[in-house]
C-alpha cells in the first residue's frame, strides 16, 4: 500500500514517459527508444495501481488472469497482422479503447464508492457529468470504429450511405444526449445513464456510415482523437493524472492528424464529417464520356524507358497496398539502381487509407526511409526527372486540381507528376478514382498507360530490365 500522494507522482511519471514516447517519433532513429519509454510508462502505471490496493483478495488473481488473456490476444494479433491490414487494425484497436472507457464508466456508475465518488444514487455531480462524457465519447468511438473497421476490411461497402434528413437526425440525437445527461444529473436514475450510452452507440454508427472509403484517413485520425477524449473523461472521473495527460495527448494527436489529412485533400473538417463525398458511385463530373486517345504501353516499353532514365520517381498509392506490390516494387528499384538510375519515392499526405500508410509498406519492403519523400520535399524534382512511375495512385496526381476551378478536387495539393519527361501510369482500367473524376493525366502525350495489376506489371518490368 503506497500513499495517495506517491501514487499521484508515479502517475505523473507515466504521463511524462508517454510524452517522451511521442517525442521519440520525431525521427526513426529515436522512435524505438520512444516506444520503450511508452512501455515503461505503462508498466509503472499498472504496477503502482496494484501497489495501491490494500486488500489482496482472490479478485486480484483474476485481474492477473484477465490481463494475461488480453495480453496474449494482443500479442498474437500484433505478430500475425500483415502490414497491409494496418488501417483496419488501428480502427479495431480504437474500438477497444472506446468500449473499455464505456465499461469503466458503467462500473463507476454502479459502484461509485469503489472510486470514492459518493454512493450509488448519490454520486457527486461533477463526477456524474465526467463519467457521462467519458461513456458517451467512448461509445461513439466504439461504434464509429467498428463501422470504419468493416469498411476498411471490405466487409461493408466503402461507398457512403446517405439518406434525407441525416444531418438533422444526427443533430437531434446529439441534443438528446445532452438533455438525457441533464436529467441524469437531476435524479441519477440508471435508466438515463443506459439511454445516454445506447444513443451514443447510435451516433457513432450514424456518423461514420455516410463517409466514403477515400476519406478514411480523416475518419481514422478523428476516431483516434475521440478515443483520447474518452480516456480523458474517465481520467477526470477517476481523478487520475496519467489518464488525463494521456487522454489530452492522444486527443490532440488525433486532431492534428485529422487536420493534416483534411489539408491534404483541401477540404474542411466539416465537409468530410458531413460526408457523402468519396464514394465510388458518385456521378462523374460533366460525364466526359467521349473517348479521348490514350497511349497504351507494355512492360517492355516501361522497362526500356526506366533503364535509360537517369532519375525515376515512384508515386505509390492505395492500389499498391491492395495489390501488395511493395516487395516487387523494391526489387524493381534495386535492378534500376544497378543500372545507375537514381530512384526516389514521393508520398502524398493522403495516399492510402491512413496517415503514413505508404511509408509503413515501403519500410516493410526494406526501402530505406531516406529515399522516401513527402509532397513538399519532392514536388519540385518532377521537372528534372525522366520517368514518374505511378503505381496505385490516381487523384493525388490529377493536374485538374491545379487548373479547373469547377473540379471537386480543385485546390487539393497534388504531385506534379505531369512535369516529368514521361509518366508511366499503372492502373487496371481507365475508371476514375475515388473522387469520381477523370484524370487528365491519362490523355497527356508524355503518359504511357500500363493496364495491369500493379504487382504483376511491376514483376513483368523486372523480367524485362
Amino acid at each position, binding site marked *: 500500500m503506497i500513499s495517495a500522494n506517491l501514487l499521484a507522482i508515479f502517475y505523473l511519471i507515466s504521463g511524462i514517459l508517454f*510524452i517522451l514516447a*511521442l517525442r521519440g517519433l*520525431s525521427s526513426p532513429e529515436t*522512435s*524505438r527508444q520512444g516506444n520503450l519509454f*511508452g512501455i515503461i510508462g*505503462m508498466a509503472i*502505471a*499498472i504496477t503502482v495501481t496494484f501497489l495501491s490496493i490494500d486488500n489482496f483478495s482472490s*479478485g486480484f488473481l483474476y*485481474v492477473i488472469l*484477465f490481463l494475461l*488473456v*488480453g*495480453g496474449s*490476444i*494482443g500479442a498474437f*494479433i*500484433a505478430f500475425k497482422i500483415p502490414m497491409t491490414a*494496418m488501417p483496419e487494425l*488501428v480502427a479495431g484497436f480504437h474500438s*477497444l479503447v472506446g*468500449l*473499455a472507457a464505456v*465499461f*469503466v464508466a*458503467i*462500473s*463507476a456508475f*454502479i*459502484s461509485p464508492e*469503489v472510486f470514492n465518488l459518493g454512493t450509488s444514487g448519490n454520486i457527486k455531480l461533477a463526477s456524474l457529468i465526467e463519467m457521462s462524457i467519458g461513456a458517451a465519447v467512448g461509445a461513439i468511438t466504439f461504434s464509429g470504429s467498428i463501422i470504419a473497421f468493416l469498411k476498411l476490411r471490405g466487409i461493408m461497402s466503402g461507398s457512403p450511405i446517405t439518406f434525407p434528413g441525416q444531418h438533422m437526425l444526427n443533430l437531434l440525437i446529439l441534443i438528446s444526449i445532452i438533455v438525457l445527461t441533464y436529467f441524469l444529473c437531476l435524479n441519477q436514475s440508471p435508466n438515463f445513464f443506459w439511454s445516454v450510452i445506447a444513443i451514443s452507440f447510435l451516433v457513432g454508427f450514424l456518423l461514420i456510415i455516410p463517409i466514403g472509403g477515400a476519406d478514411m484517413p480523416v475518419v*481514422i485520425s478523428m476516431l*483516434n482523437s475521440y478515443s483520447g477524449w474518452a*480516456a480523458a473523461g*474517465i481520467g477526470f*472521473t*477517476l*481523478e*487520475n493524472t496519467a*489518464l488525463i*495527460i*494521456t*487522454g*489530452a*495527448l*492522444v486527443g490532440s494527436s488525433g486532431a*492534428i*492528424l485529422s487536420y493534416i489529412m483534411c489539408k491534404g485533400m483541401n477540404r474542411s473538417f466539416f465537409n468530410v464529417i458531413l460526408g457523402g463525398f468519396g464514394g465510388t458511385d458518385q456521378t462523374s463530373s460533366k460525364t466526359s464520356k467521349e473517348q479521348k486517345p490514350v497511349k497504351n504501353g507494355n512492360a517492355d516499353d516501361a522497362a526500356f524507358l526506366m533503364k535509360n532514365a537517369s532519375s525515376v520517381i515512384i508515386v505509390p498509392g492505395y492500389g499498391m497496398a491492395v495489390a501488395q506490390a511493395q516487395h516487387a516494387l523494391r526489387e524493381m528499384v534495386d535492378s534500376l539502381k544497378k543500372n545507375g538510375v537514381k530512384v526516389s519515392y514521393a*508520398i502524398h499526405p493522403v495516399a492510402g487509407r*491512413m*496517415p*503514413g500508410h505508404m511509408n*509503413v509498406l515501403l*519500410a*516493410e519492403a*526494406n526501402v*530505406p*526511409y531516406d529515399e522516401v519523400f*513527402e509532397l513538399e520535399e519532392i514536388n519540385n524534382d518532377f521537372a528534372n526527372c525522366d520517368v514518374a512511375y505511378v503505381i496505385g495512385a490516381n487523384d493525388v496526381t490529377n493536374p485538374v486540381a491545379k487548373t479547373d476551378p469547377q473540379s471537386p478536387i480543385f485546390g487539393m495539393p497534388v504531385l506534379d507528376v505531369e512535369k516529368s519527361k514521361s509518366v508511366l501510369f499503372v492502373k487496371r482500367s481507365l475508371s476514375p478514382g475515388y473522387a469520381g473524376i477523370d484524370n487528365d493525366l491519362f490523355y497527356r502525350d508524355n503518359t504511357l498507360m500500363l493496364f495491369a495489376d500493379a504487382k504483376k506489371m511491376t514483376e513483368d518490368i523486372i523480367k524485362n530490365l
Partner: protein
Amino acid sequence: MEIDPFIFRLSIFILSIFVGYYVVWSVTPSLHTPLMSVTNAISSVIIVGAIIASLAGSSLSVFNQSSIFGFLAIVLAAINIFGGFLVTQRMLAMYKKKKKDKK
C-alpha cells in the same frame, strides 16, 4: 477560499493538450502510422480504472455487476496495450536507413 481540485486537474489537462500539440507537430509524417498505434497503446492506460473497478467485489464474491465490467475492460485494454506496443515495435524495426541493408 480554497481551490477546487478539479481546477488543478483541468490545468493539467489543458497544459497536456498544448504539450501534445507541439510534440505531435514534430512527428515526422513518415511515422504517422506508428504514431496512431502508439497513441492507441498509451490511451489504454485506462486499464488502471479497470483494475480498480474489477476489485469492487468483496472477498466472498469476486464477481459482482461492476467488477465484471472491470474485468471485461481489463481484457480489452490489455489487448490494446500489448497489441499496440508490439505492433509499433514491429513497424519501427522496419524503418532503416540506406547502406545499412545492401543485400
